[in-house]
């Protein structure tokens, strides 16, 4: 499906021979084709990124956008961030009315400043302004310059956001020829012109007349994966370190060098770990014991300090504080394993359920998270060290099926993290309902959960009673109970929880001598998927899963089953759903069983319509009625 986007984008690519053109600010001059499906039109863009040397670079931006309607207002929110290695020079923002007449302007001093509050400790400052407008269309012009010391991040040439069309855009990168750069286009076919200017190599990309494309829910985040050209350095400076990025191996070398000498634990602590695992018979067991200790005694605190978020705190520091960020905790786990003679590797990864993969053949810095890999002869152990509840050796949707960069003694090695399996995320439930003649009744449901479901059920257990009630009704889909209890039974591989409810009206409704019962008193699936018409991007579920359920209605005496739904079996390439309902006359019980499985969380765009139809079918089949009648 990517192919489709390529082809329609290239159709509208004008010749690469774009000359500097005059900028038009009036909304009337926008070609009709560029307004189609667009809330914003990028009228003009000229960006120059100039790498002065390995230490310094400047980034000059000049952009003009026409915002066609309220839904495009995001283009009127200007913000840039600064940190220890990044400063802004000048900022010049102008607003124009529909006819292109300048209405007002803003300078750097007009920007609001707000320190980042994402972590408890970091050093990022945002400079922002929301440009107020009272009617549309409106045109805005941004001009600013950023200076960076340090060159680990070359900017990305983001050509086009969703629901935005492009009239004229160009990006120039100037780099000393002996340093040079690497580039890769993404979702768009575009080649630069390359020239020499004295000692510098000059790359220039141009994109004109691109039609808007649609933003699709559940796809890979378009902010990072829309039509763009990614740039990456060959070598770079970051604070007081110098590294190479030409190969994953070299980049990994730099990242692992940052950790050198920080892994020492005191003899006392080493002895503690050796003692902790002394009874374990295998490495796997030892790792599990130490991981459990980490989960029970350490907490995650976001600290983005220490050379721009790349260098972990020394293991002894983390040991003393009993907290850390992803680097600190992964690295601490690494050090603890080292103390008991087990080798492991910290691994850089993109953490985000729809984060996508870093390109294999294009080493670049897109990682935002660190996990730990313990190599084993068969099935390496992967550990998420920031969670107090994650299961041992199972990566959740945050990091599964990615390219991770292992930081080894021989530099970086790009490997794939294991893909989530449906069997790792399962929830089975069985419910007994004693139904009274007046429609009221008690239900007792035993849930046994693994993976994502286990984490969810854990959150139910620890929630306050009122919140539990909301979760039972809104998430699990039970009817509103008068009384209820949630009891944790056991937690081994699966977490067992029993939820008992007292419900005033169990039937969906009653009429005359009949009661109309739902096949289950809660929902196996109740999420309506986004529309499938014209889907172009792959769709991401959080994880593949299996749900099974057995529901038994004990009918009030005098009642018999009049009509029960026929067995159902739905199927699509990525999922199966089946239900069966039986009436046990001798016990006067109705038994309803169901099983729903999604085998893979990434659904290719071409298959999405089938999957959407499948899940709509599940919801619809789930609302069949069991009819019982008083004899």
């Amino acid at each position, binding site marked *: 499906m990517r192919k489709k986007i390529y082809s329609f984008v290239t159709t509208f690519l004008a010749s690469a021979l774009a000359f500097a053109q005059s900028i038009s600010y009036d909304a009337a001059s926008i070609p009709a084709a560029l307004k189609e499906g667009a809330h914003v039109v990028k009228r003009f863009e000229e960006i120059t990124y100039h790498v002065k040397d390995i230490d310094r670079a400047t980034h000059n931006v000049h952009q003009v956008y026409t915002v066609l309607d309220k839904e495009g207002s995001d283009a009127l929110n200007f913000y840039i961030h600064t940190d220890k290695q990044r400063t802004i020079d000048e900022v010049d923002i102008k607003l124009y009315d529909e006819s292109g007449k300048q209405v007002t302007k803003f300078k750097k001093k007009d920007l609001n400043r707000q*320190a980042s509050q994402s972590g408890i400790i970091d050093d990022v400052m945002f400079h922002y302004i929301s440009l*107020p407008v009272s009617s549309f269309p409106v045109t805005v012009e941004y001009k600013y310059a950023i200076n960076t010391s340090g060159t680990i991040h070359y900017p990305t040439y983001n050509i086009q956001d969703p629901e935005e069309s492009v009239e004229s855009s160009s990006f120039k990168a100037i780099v000393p020829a002996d340093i040079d750069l690497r580039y890769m286009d993404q979702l768009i076919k575009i080649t630069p012109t390359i020239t020499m200017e004295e000692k510098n190599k000059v790359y220039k990309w141009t994109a004109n007349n691109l039609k808007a494309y649609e933003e699709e829910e559940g796809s890979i985040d378009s902010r990072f994966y829309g039509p763009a050209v990614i740039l990456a350095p060959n070598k770079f400076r970051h604070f007081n370190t110098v590294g190479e990025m030409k190969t994953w191996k070299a980049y990994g070398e730099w990242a692992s060098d940052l950790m050198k000498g920080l892994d020492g634990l005191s003899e006392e602590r080493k002895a503690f770990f050796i003692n902790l695992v002394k009874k374990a018979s295998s490495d796997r067991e030892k790792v599990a014991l130490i991981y459990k200790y980490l989960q029970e005694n350490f907490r995650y*605190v976001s600290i983005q300090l220490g050379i721009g978020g790349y260098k972990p705190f020394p293991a002894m520091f983390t040991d003393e504080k009993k907290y850390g960020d992803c680097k600190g905790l992964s690295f601490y786990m690494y050090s603890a394993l080292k103390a008991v003679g087990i080798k492991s590797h910290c691994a850089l990864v993109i953490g985000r359920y729809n984060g996508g993969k870093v390109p294999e053949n294009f080493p670049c810095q897109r990682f935002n998270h660190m996990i730990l890999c313990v190599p084993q002869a068969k099935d390496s152990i992967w550990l998420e060290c920031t969670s107090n509840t994650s299961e041992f050796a199972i990566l959740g949707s945050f990091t599964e099926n990615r390219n991770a960069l292992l930081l080894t003694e021989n530099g970086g090695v790009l490997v794939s993290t294991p893909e989530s399996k449906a069997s790792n995320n399962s929830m089975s439930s069985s419910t007994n309902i004693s139904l009274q003649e007046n429609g009221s009744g008690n239900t007792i449901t035993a849930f046994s959960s693994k993976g994502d479901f286990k984490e969810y059920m854990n959150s139910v257990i620890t929630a306050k009673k009122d919140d539990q009630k909301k979760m039972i009704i809104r998430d699990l889909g039970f*009817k509103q109970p008068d009384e209820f209890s949630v009891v944790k039974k056991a937690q081994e591989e699966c977490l067992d929880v029993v939820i008992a409810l007292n419900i005033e009206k169990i039937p*969906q*409704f009653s*009429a005359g001598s009949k009661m*109309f019962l739902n096949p289950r008193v809660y929902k196996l699936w109740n999420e309506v998927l986004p529309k499938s018409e014209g889907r172009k991007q792959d769709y991401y579920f959080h994880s593949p899963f299996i749900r099974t359920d057995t529901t038994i209605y004990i009918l009030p005496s005098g009642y018999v089953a009049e009509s*029960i739904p026929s067995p159902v079996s739905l199927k699509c390439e990525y999922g199966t759903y089946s239900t069966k309902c039986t009436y046990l006359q001798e016990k006067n019980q109705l038994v309803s069983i169901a099983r729903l499985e999604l085998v893979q969380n990434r659904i290719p765009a071409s298959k999405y319509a089938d999957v959407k139809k499948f899940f709509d079918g599940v919801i*619809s089949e789930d609302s069949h009625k069991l009819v019982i009648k008083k004899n």
Partner: protein
Amino acid sequence: MNKFTLVFCCLLLYIGGFSQLKSKFGTVTLEESNLKQCSFDPEASAVVLLDEGFSDFDGTHGLITWFHKKIKILEEDGRKYADVKLRFYHDNDFEILDNLQAQVINLDENGRRKDSYLDDKSFFYKKLNKYWTEVTFAMPDVKVGSIIEYKYRVIAKHYGGLRDWEFQSDIPVMNSSYKLIVVPGHEVSYLVQYNPKYKVDYKHDKDEHSIWFAMHNIPALTDEPYMDAREDYIQKIIFQTTKYAGIVGQVNYMSTWKEVSRELLSRPDFGRQLKLNVNECNDFITSIQSKKDIQKMQLVHHYVTGNFSWNGEHGIIATDGIKSLIKTKNGNAAQINLLLVNLLREAGLEAYPMVVSERGNGKVNKDQPFIQQFNNVYAAVLIGDKKYYLDATDHYTPSHIIPYSILNSTGFIVDNKAGELIDIKENEIKYHDQVTISSTLKEDGELTGSVNLESSEYARSQKVHDYVNNKTDYVENYIRKGLVNVNVDNFSIKNLENDSLPLAQGFDFKTQVQATDDYSFINLNMFTGLENNPFIVNDRFSKINFGYKKSLFLTYIVNLPPNYKVDALPKSIKLVNPDQSVTFTRELYYEKSQLMARIKVNINRSLFDVNEYAGIKDFFKQMVNLMNEQVVLKKI
């Protein structure tokens, strides 16, 4: 005031004195170390053992306040309370925060105390923005059973830095106390807002010129649906300096509502803005001179909303003035609405600025002329004997409708003569939706039909807002919300511009009715937006504030094919709450292969007291059950 909140007020006069925090840093009682669960809020993941404040002054420093807090972690989840953020106001060096000490107290396996004291390097000072600095620190080695403790001092330049004291928090509080000593020549009045379920101790020491408050065992405060403002329910003390020693003797400062008017009207950034000549708008004013008063009001309101944009800031003070607004075309709410008042007056109307406390900002106490109680300024217009309230930062509410943001609140009209407090209520205008569905069922179970959804008054304003902000997904997010396997086509919307007509939304739909064996079911809850009961929890702290009254009418006609007959119809029924202010009526008719359902929901009050919650909760539960009852058809 409602009966759940008692308020008293007192003036404090100073003489002198000095005292210290009562509690000592580092002390832990046996009960505290044995505590495993909070007895009065057993689900809490952490509990505040002690929260103490003490304010005094000295000649050079102004207001000095010491804070001391001790929290015990009771569950894993409660460890997040070990990440601490404190703030102070650094603009103009108004406040500084110093003498910060923090530690974690753990007991080892032998029950011996092990303290981890944080060094200065563990405290991070970060300027958040122009005004505030934040101090952050993460406590080390925190586990279930740890006690975290910190203490610090804040020095403010003067008594304007007097902070409200909140007894309650998002985790339960066992002991909270605050003592204030007042500087000579100052008068501080205070309000105690508390729920009589809990007791407030206070001690007034005339010799020391101090007042001391304490509360014990206060459960956590949580947010609730349709809650008007968290601020109204938290147990706290509010202070205002009512008299201070100026350079030339004593100055009375806003101690009556009249003085509030006088003070505001004399300010260059408020009252004087109303007197400025706005020549730039003369042409517009001249062009409407021949219109009737009502039209003039509407035209001026349109003119200001259409030409001046709001920068998102609320406030009652127009620091930059209306001249700057006219020049740059954008400004804060005070600039925009003071310009509105100015122009309304130019147009010959009787108009005043009205300071308001918007939804979420908390209730105005009429006995206390505290200007801090308000967060914004609107325009009040008097035409005949009717008052109109306008906010020109709101593009969606027409002049004749009171903005939702101030419904069921108190405003204060600022004027030396006409100044008064106003209870803003809306009794006539409602949130009204009317849904008409006309459909046909085919023999194969396909149901198709056309829908006309008319939204008037508050429903209109709300939906115009939703539509304009989300045109692309309006059908998906608002019309089809909660419905599965229902296709919606040919959506049209009319009267977007004409705010005196209902917003008419029309569309066709298609679905397959559910069937089991010979039975088929028709869902009556279509396009009503009534799928969930917002009131689930057993108890409630706060009033239910809907703002407006609400009504919904649904007429649903289904033409049946000859091979179906009705097997069971849901009962025609009327449901009412105890005082009959909320009603649900359902009527069903079946005649000659035509089925008709009429459903009416009326909420005839916009505000309900806490003790009415049980009735409302039960009503909504029954109503959602009734809405989910279906018509049963049988194949013949």
